[in-house]
């Protein structure tokens, strides 16, 4: 029994954190520029992160979701401008579920990918909102068969993986109609991508469920990382900012808010660690564990990054200060994760109505 990272996972976390500190931060893309040159190739060549949780048989490293989760927490902390989320958290788990070794090999060689859901959903209550292109983001395009989804990295990714019911289709992005949108989070561009109907291969519901759970937990881990960074930044600022002749961090009004932020961050972290373990271990309560992680990390990220702005006062509202990067990412992540109250509604169905997939 041990609820905590192993020595290897701790080392991975420290390495990722230190290594990312040497890469550009979110400021570099703050004016709508594309991802800085060279960041993605360094991630692929020096770290190989997109392949961490890919089985060896499909050309990956064969580690678990827990290892990749550790990397995503570090990415959330640094907000490194790169297509890691769309490629490694959204697309690759679906490619693994579909057994698509060829496309995984393209990613290994430096291609970027993203994922979107079109139209009908798998008949599994917890798939709702768990993947990109949640129901409220999908709308009908000009062609009756087409659907338009708001997709992270939709305009720049080389490959788009689409889920339609239990089918997974892989498209060369150049063949799709893509229209950049003004992203809430400038450090992660979004585009409206038109997804044609039909095609793809059928994938077992369990494999799709696992892929969706993986995407959700990795996004939740990013949320924990950015919340933790926002809290640390706020605490440091409270020690150096003086008003009325005192560090503002000595005021109880500030201390109590920070204490509540720590409660939110560490609780979300526990929930995310447990959910990652539940996926890796194939635990019976995986669906509820993922819902708990999504709900708690979703809220912790938006709330803590918002408190960060409030506690920084005026400086936190400026473009120059870094507080807004995490604030915007947190809300953009929530749009992808699905609203916390919807995750709770699914949990309530299991607790009160005894709906099978959940118990």
């Amino acid at each position, binding site marked *: 029994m*041990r609820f905590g990272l192993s020595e290897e996972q701790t080392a991975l976390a420290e390495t990722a954190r230190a290594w990312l500190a040497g890469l550009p931060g979110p400021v570099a893309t703050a004016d709508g520029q594309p991802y800085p040159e060279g960041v993605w190739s360094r991630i692929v060549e020096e770290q190989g992160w997109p392949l961490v949780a890919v089985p060896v048989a499909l050309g990956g490293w064969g580690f678990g979701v827990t290892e990749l989760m550790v990397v995503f927490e570090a990415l959330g902390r640094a907000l490194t401008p790169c297509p890691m989320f769309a490629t490694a958290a959204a697309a690759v788990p679906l490619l693994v579920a579909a057994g698509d070794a060829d496309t995984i090999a393209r990613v290994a060689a430096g291609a970027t990918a993203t994922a979107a859901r079109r139209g009908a959903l798998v008949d599994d209550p917890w798939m709702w909102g768990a993947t990109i292109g949640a129901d409220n983001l999908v709308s009908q395009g000009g062609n009756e068969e087409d659907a338009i989804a708001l997709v992270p990295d939709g305009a720049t990714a080389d490959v788009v993986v689409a889920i339609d019911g239990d089918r997974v289709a892989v498209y060369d992005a150049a063949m799709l109609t893509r229209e950049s949108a003004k992203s809430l989070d400038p450090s992660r561009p979004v585009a409206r991508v038109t997804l044609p109907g039909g095609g793809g291969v059928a994938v077992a519901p369990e494999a799709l469920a696992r892929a969706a759970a993986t995407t959700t937990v990795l996004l939740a881990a990013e949320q924990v990382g950015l919340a933790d960074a926002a809290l640390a930044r706020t605490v440091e600022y409270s020690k150096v900012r003086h008003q009325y002749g005192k560090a503002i*961090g000595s005021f109880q009004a500030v201390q109590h808010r*920070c204490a509540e932020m720590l409660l939110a961050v*560490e609780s979300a972290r526990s929930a995310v660690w447990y959910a990652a373990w539940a996926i890796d271990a194939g635990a019976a309560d995986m669906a509820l564990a993922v819902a708990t992680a999504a709900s708690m990390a979703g809220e912790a990220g938006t709330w803590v990054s918002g408190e960060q702005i409030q506690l920084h006062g005026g400086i936190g509202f400026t473009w120059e200060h870094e507080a807004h990067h995490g604030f915007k990412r947190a809300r953009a992540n929530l749009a992808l994760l699905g609203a916390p109250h919807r995750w709770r509604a699914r*949990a*309530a169905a299991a607790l*009160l109505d005894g709906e099978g997939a959940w118990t």
Partner: protein
Amino acid sequence: MDLRFSAEDERFREEVRDWLADHLRGPFAALRGRGGLGDMDAFVPERIAWEQELARGGWTCLGWPMAHGGRGASLFQEVIFLEEYARARAPGRVGHIGEGLLGPTVIQYGTPAQQARFLPPIVAGRELWCQGYSEPEAGSDLANLKTRAVLEDGQWRVYGQKVWTSLAGDADACFVLARTDPASRRHDGISCLLVPMRQPGVRAVPIRQMTGSAEFFEVFFDGAAAEDVVGPVGAGWKVAMSTLAYERGASTLGQQLAFLVELEAVIGAARRSRAATDPILRDRIASLWMRLQVMRHNALRTLSHGEMGTLGREAFLTKLYWATWHRDLGELAMDVLGDDAGAWTEVDGVDLHRLYLWSRSDTIYAGTNEIQKNLIAQRALGMPR
């Protein structure tokens, strides 16, 4: 991450479960679910007998070293015991203050003679202890205590008043923090005295709480003779602080299961009423359920850190977390009852009104939520005083 108990631990769990099933019957069957928080004054003589029954089975003082009569159980075995104890709805312990607070203090600071005198009766459930720390003017600010002890003809005698002392009416003895150096201030000049309760200079007066029950006492000392002093005279503050630190986090997991029993009763009440179709109540039920799962995860994280001899930031959150959770459960219970909340209601053996009223104390005793937030900010986050 490895969240499975070892085969040895699972065997231990079986043993605990079987023993409780075999012994929590006959005269003890009526004690199921009784004597917990908010109900600590119920069935006290019967619970003392149960304490001795536990002792005969070797289930008291599990985590103490074997040399002192304990079982030398691992932290996770303690967790397992407490989980099974809560699952069986075994009665609230009466020996927990001796087992959890005074005993470990005597093991750390006591002389061999003191250990031989005080530890065996705790292990056997024959001597019950109460804790004399809080005073009317020393609640959160414990160092403001005014109770004093005076050496009269070689005998320490205690004068003053303690308050919020649980079990004082039934305890055999009290460990009292008192000022032994009249010239001292704040943390200096305090000692930890062991005072028998059944003597003329001690008077325990019950405090009736808003729950209607009287689980706590005011204790008045007027020249009561102390039997002994644990730790050096004048070092009582250090002794008291380490007493408060003995809680290794295992009890949170037993408590988590007891909370689950309560939450399940609230869910049961919701299922049998219109509350189960109210979207806002459904959201709150799911939220409390999720937070309770995370209470367990946080506790396991704290324990895992403890086993490695490290202290994680999450350890500082324990009290604030469970107290706030339990108060929210009390509110939810009333809202689920809806129109029926106006009358005391028991559901699946859980008294929801006692829970509701009691939970108002959770965020106050053992460090108020406000004090907890100060501690978290200053100790876990390093914010300036």
